[in-house]
C-alpha cells in the first residue's frame, strides 16, 4: 500500500514535469507555426494582390496602346478623301489596296470595310466574311473611339470601328489586332501570371497547360492543392476582368496566380519548424525525466523514513543528496517530527507506567513487574502499606499536605538502603507496595521492621510535624503463592487483617485467603438479606430483673441470623463482619425498627417493658442516627425512655467528640444510655464522669465467677458504689447462679441478667416465661417509668 502510493507520487510527478515541458514546447511550436503561417499568408496575399493589380495595369496599358494605334490608323484611313471617294464609288480593288496599305502601317490583322448595314464590302486580306458583323458594329457604335475585344470567325480580336464620313456616314471600317497564342505568351511574360481569354463559356486562349475543354479548364481553375492530406487549399487565385466587348458574346480575361510554389515554400518551412519542435520535445522529455528523478528520489527516501517512524524507529539519518531547499526543509521537519514523537512517546510511556505525584511506578507497571520479576527471584518479600490516618490528615491539613505526605512516603521507600532487588509502587490512593528480593538467610521481620521504622518517623512539612500510622500486610514468595496476582491479593488480605486487628503489621497466614473468601461470601449474603428485608434475621430478648423489687422492667434485644444453606450464624461473627463492611448502620436500623414494633405489641398487651439495643461506634458517628431514632420511636408510638441504647466505651472513643455529641442529643431526646461491657477495655474514670450515662453494665467477666472471686466482689462492690455516687444505675451481666445474684443484691446492684434468670428467647417464649415467673419477678405497673 505504501509502496504503491510512492509509485503513484513518482508517476504523477514525472508525468506532470514532462507534460509541462512538452506542453510548453508544443505551445511555442504551434504559436510559431501559426504566426509564421499567418504572416506568410498575409505577405503572400499582398504579393499576389500586388501582382494581380500590376497585371491588370499592364493589360490595360497594353490594350490602350494598341487601341490608340487602331484609332490613329482608322482615323487616318477614313479621313482620306481618296478613300472616301473609293468608298462612294464602291471601287473594291482600290479599297482593298488602301485597306492593305493602311493595315500594314500598324500591322493590323483585320481591316474591313462594311456598309452601314454590316455587309462586307472589302477587306485587306483573305477574310472570308462573317456573320454578326452588324451586331458587333452596333456594340462598337455605342462606345465611339473605344476598342473592344470581339470574336470574329472564331478568332479573338481587339477591334475598333470608324465610320467613313462623306460627310455623313456612308460605310464602316473595322480594324483590329488578333490576340493569338503569341500575344498571350507575351502578355503572360509581362504579367508573370497565367492568362485565359473566354468568350462566354468558350475558352479561346489560355496559358494554362493541357486545357482541352471548358470543363477541364474550369476544373483546372478550381483545382485544390492536397499537399496536406486532411486540408485542401486552393491551388490558384483567379481574377476575372471584363474588358469592353459585345454584350452578345462577352469576352472575359481570367488572371490566374499559381499558389503552389508558395505552398511548397511554406510547407518546407513548416516541416523544418516541426522537425526542430520534435527534437526540442524529445529533449524536453529527457530533461523532464531527469528533473523528475532528481526531485522524486529524495521524496522516496523521505517516505521510507516516514515508514520507519510507524515502526517506532525515530532516529535515522536521511540521505537526500543534493536536493532542493524545499526537500531539505521537509527532511529537517520530518527529523524534528521524529524526535518530537519519540520524546512524547517516552513521556507517555513514563506516564503510563508511573504515578504522576510520587514518581513511583504505578499499579499497572507493578503488576507487570511482578509478572516478569517474580519468576527470576528465588525468594521475595511483598509488603503493602496503607496510611491509616491519611483521611484525618487530608481533612484537617488539606489535600496539598496529604499529597506531600504521599511524596515523602515515596521518597522514604526509595531511599531504603537494601542490597538486593527492590521495587516500590504506589498502587491506588494510600496504598503502597514494595517487593524486595530475599536471600537464603534473610529475616523478613527485620526487614519489615526496618522499613516501617523508616516510614513511621515523624514527618515535618511546612512547619507541621505529624506522625503517619500505617497498617501493612506481608507475604513471602513463593511460600504464600507463586502466582503474582494471588501473591498481591494475599498481601492485601494480610494488610486488611492488620487493619481489622488494629495491628501495624500482619504476615499472611496460610488459609487466610480462603477464610477471607468465606467472609466475603457471608458478607454478600448478609448484604442480600438486609436488602431483601427477609426473615433471615430475628430477635431474641433476655430479661433484666430489678433487684430492688424483683420486677422485670427491661429486656436486652439480641439479633439472630438463620442463614439459608448455612444455618445459624453466631452474632459475634456477622456483627463484626457488618461493622467491617459498613453494614452495621443498616443492621441497627433493622433491629431498632423490629424492637420498637415488639415493644409496641407488648405495651398494647399490657407488658410495659423497656428494651436495650446495642449500638456501635459507626451508628453514633452516622450523621442521621439521631434523626433515625427519633423517627423510629415516633413511628412506633413508643416513649423514648423505653429505649435503652447500649454502647461500649471503646465505641464511644472511636470518634470521641462526635460520639459524645450524639449521646447527649439522644439523652436529651429521652433515650436512655447504657455503657456496655464496663470494666474491660480502656475504661477510664476520667472519661466516665463526663459521659451522659444512665446505667453501667458490668462486664460478665466480673460477674460469672463473682461468688468465687473475692477480688471481683471487691471491684464490683466498689464500682457499684462509685456508679451510684455518680448517679448511674448498675446492671450486672452474666449472672449464672443464685449465689452471685444474692451477692449482687447485697451489694445494692440495681438489676441483673444472665442465664441464671433466663437465656435470650423469642418474644412468645419470653411472654410465657414472664407468666411462669410472675410470682418471682413481677412486672412493674404500666406507669412505672423507672426500673
Amino acid at each position, binding site marked *: 500500500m505504501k509502496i504503491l502510493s510512492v509509485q503513484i507520487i513518482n508517476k504523477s510527478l514525472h508525468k506532470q514535469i514532462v507534460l509541462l515541458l512538452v506542453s510548453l514546447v508544443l505551445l511555442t511550436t504551434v504559436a510559431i507555426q501559426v504566426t509564421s503561417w499567418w504572416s506568410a499568408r498575409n505577405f503572400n496575399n499582398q504579393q499576389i494582390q500586388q501582382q494581380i493589380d500590376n497585371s491588370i495595369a499592364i493589360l490595360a496599358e497594353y490594350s490602350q496602346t494598341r487601341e490608340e494605334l487602331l484609332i*490613329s490608323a482608322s482615323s487616318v484611313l477614313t*479621313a482620306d*478623301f481618296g478613300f*472616301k*471617294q473609293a468608298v462612294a464609288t464602291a471601287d473594291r480593288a482600290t479599297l482593298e489596296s488602301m485597306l492593305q496599305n493602311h493595315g500594314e502601317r500598324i500591322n493590323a490583322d483585320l481591316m474591313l470595310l462594311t456598309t452601314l448595314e454590316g455587309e462586307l464590302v472589302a477587306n485587306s486580306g483573305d477574310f472570308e466574311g462573317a456573320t454578326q458583323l452588324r451586331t458587333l458594329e452596333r456594340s462598337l457604335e455605342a462606345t465611339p*473611339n473605344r476598342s473592344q475585344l470581339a470574336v470574329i470567325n472564331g478568332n479573338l480580336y481587339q477591334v475598333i470601328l470608324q465610320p467613313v464620313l462623306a*460627310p*455623313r456616314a456612308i460605310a464602316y471600317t473595322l480594324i483590329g489586332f488578333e490576340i493569338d497564342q503569341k500575344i498571350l505568351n507575351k502578355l503572360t511574360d509581362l504579367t508573370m501570371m497565367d492568362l485565359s481569354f473566354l468568350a462566354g463559356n468558350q475558352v479561346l486562349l489560355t496559358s494554362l497547360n493541357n486545357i482541352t475543354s471548358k470543363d477541364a479548364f474550369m476544373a483546372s481553375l478550381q483545382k485544390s492543392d492536397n499537399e496536406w492530406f486532411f486540408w485542401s487549399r486552393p491551388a490558384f487565385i483567379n481574377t476575372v476582368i471584363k474588358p469592353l466587348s459585345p454584350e452578345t458574346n462577352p469576352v472575359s480575361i481570367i488572371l490566374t496566380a499559381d499558389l503552389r510554389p508558395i505552398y511548397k515554400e511554406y510547407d518546407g518551412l513548416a516541416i523544418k519548424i516541426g522537425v526542430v519542435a520534435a527534437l526540442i520535445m524529445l529533449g524536453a522529455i529527457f530533461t523532464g525525466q531527469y528533473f523528475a528523478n532528481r526531485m522524486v528520489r529524495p521524496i522516496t527516501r523521505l517516505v521510507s523514513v516516514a515508514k520507519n517512524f510507524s515502526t517506532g524507529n525515530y532516529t535515522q539519518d536521511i540521505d537526500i543528496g543534493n536536493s532542493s531547499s524545499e526537500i531539505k526543509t521537509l527532511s529537517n521537519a520530518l527529523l524534528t517530527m521524529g524526535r518530537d514523537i519519540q520524546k512524547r512517546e517516552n513521556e507517555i510511556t513514563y506516564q503510563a507506567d508511573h504515578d504522576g505525584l510520587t514518581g513511583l511506578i504505578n499499579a499497572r507497571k507493578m503488576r507487570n513487574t511482578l509478572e516478569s520479576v517474580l519468576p527470576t527471584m528465588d525468594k521475595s518479600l511483598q509488603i503493602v502499606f496503607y496510611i491509616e490516618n491519611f483521611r484525618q490528615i487530608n481533612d484537617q491539613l488539606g489535600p496539598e499536605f496529604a499529597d506531600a505526605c504521599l511524596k515523602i512516603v515515596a521518597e522514604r521507600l526509595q531511599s531504603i538502603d537494601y542490597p538486593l532487588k527492590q521495587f516500590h509502587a504506589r498502587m491506588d490512593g494510600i496504598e503502597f507496595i514494595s517487593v524486595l528480593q530475599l536471600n537464603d538467610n534473610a529475616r523478613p521481620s527485620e526487614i519489615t521492621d526496618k522499613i516501617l521504622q523508616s516510614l513511621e518517623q515523624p514527618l515535618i512539612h511546612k512547619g507541621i510535624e505529624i506522625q503517619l500510622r500505617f497498617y501493612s500486610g506481608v507475604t513471602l514468595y513463593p511460600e504464600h503463592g507463586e502466582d503474582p496476582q494471588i501473591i498481591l491479593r494475599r498481601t492485601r488480605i494480610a494488610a486488611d487483617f492488620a487493619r481489622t486487628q488494629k495491628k501495624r503489621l500482619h504476615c499472611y497466614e496460610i488459609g487466610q485467603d480462603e477464610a477471607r473468601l468465606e467472609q466475603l461470601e457471608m458478607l454478600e449474603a448478609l448484604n442480600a438479606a438486609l436488602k431483601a428485608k427477609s426473615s433471615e434475621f430475628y430477635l431474641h430478648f433476655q430479661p433484666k430483673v430489678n433487684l430492688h423489687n424483683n420486677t422485670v422492667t427491661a429486656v436486652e434485644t439480641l439479633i439472630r441470623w438463620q442463614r439459608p444453606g448455612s444455618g445459624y450464624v453466631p452474632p459475634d461473627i456477622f456483627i463484626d463482619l457488618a461493622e467491617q463492611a459498613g453494614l452495621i448502620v443498616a443492621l441497627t436500623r433493622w433491629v431498632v425498627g423490629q424492637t420498637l414494633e415488639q415493644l409496641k405489641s407488648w405495651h398494647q398487651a399490657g407488658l410495659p417493658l423497656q428494651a436495650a439495643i446495642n449500638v456501635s461506634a459507626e451508628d453514633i458517628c452516622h450523621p442521621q442516627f439521631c434523626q433515625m431514632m427519633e423517627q423510629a420511636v415516633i413511628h412506633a408510638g413508643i416513649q423514648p425512655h423505653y429505649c435503652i441504647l447500649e454502647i461500649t466505651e471503646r465505641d464511644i472513643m472511636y470518634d470521641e467528640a462526635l460520639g459524645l455529641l450524639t449521646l447527649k442529643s439522644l439523652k436529651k431526646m429521652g433515650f436512655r444510655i447504657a455503657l456496655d461491657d464496663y470494666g474491660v477495655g480502656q475504661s477510664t474514670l476520667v472519661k466516665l464522669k463526663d459521659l451522659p450515662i444512665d446505667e453501667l453494665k458490668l462486664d460478665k467477666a466480673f460477674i460469672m465467677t463473682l461468688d468465687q472471686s473475692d477480688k471481683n466482689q471487691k471491684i464490683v462492690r466498689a464500682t457499684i458504689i462509685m456508679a451510684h455516687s455518680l448517679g448511674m444505675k448498675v446492671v450486672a451481666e452474666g449472672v449464672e447462679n443464685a449465689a452471685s445474684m444474692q451477692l449482687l443484691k447485697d451489694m445494692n446492684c440495681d438489676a441483673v441478667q444472665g442465664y441464671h434468670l433466663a437465656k435470650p428467647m423469642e418474644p412468645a417464649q419470653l411472654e410465657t416465661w414472664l407468666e411462669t415467673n410472675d410470682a418471682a419477678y413481677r412486672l412493674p405497673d404500666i406507669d412505672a417509668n423507672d426500673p
Partner: protein
Amino acid sequence: MYSGKYFAGLVLLFISGLALADMTFLVQDQDGKPLADSVLEVVSDPLKPGVNSDLGIIDQIEKAFVPELVVIQKGQLVDFPNSDNIRHHVYSFSSAKTFELKLYADRPEKPVLFDQHGVVVLGCNIHDSMVGYIYVAADQRVVKTDSQGLGQLPVSSDNSQISVWHAHQNKSTEQRDIYTLSDLKQSADKQRYIVTVEVTQPPARDTFEDTFRANY
C-alpha cells in the same frame, strides 16, 4: 437677298396646284416634337414637273453651308459661292449628283446642274464639320415644313402618295420614304395628316483633331 426668288418659286407652286385641295401635314419626330425642315413631296398622280430655270444658291459662310437645305426642281442649277476668306473643297458622293468643286475662293467657275431626283449630301473635303443638303424634287408639289413642322400640299385623293425626308433621319441619308395618305394617321379634326420620322440629332462632328485631343 435670296428669299425673294425662293418665295416667287413657292407662289408659283401654290398657283399651279390650286385646282386640288390643299392638305396640311405635320411632321414630328419619335417623341412627338415637330420637325422643321422636313421635305414632303407628292409622288403619285400624274407627275407635274416644276419650273427649273432659276439658279439655286448655297453660300459658304463661316465654315457652314447657308442655307443648309435647299429644295430645287430637277434640272435646276445651283451656285456655291464662298463667302469665307478661306478656301473650300465642296463635294458630293450622293447618287443623285456626284461632283467635286476643288479648292476655290469666291465663286466656282460655273454653277452645278442637278438633273436627277433625289437627295444630294454636300461636304467640304477640308472641313469635315460642314454638311449641306440639296433636295432635288421631280414634282412641283413639294414643301419644306416650317418651324411648327407644318407644310401644305395639294393632294387629289386618299390614295395619293407622298415621300418624306429629313436630314437627320435614322434611315439612310438619301432614302425617301413613301406613304399613301390613307395609311397616314390624321389629327382628331381630320385637318392634318401626321407623319412621324425617327431622327437622331447628329453629335458634334468627330474630327481627326477632336479624337486626337480627346485621347491625349
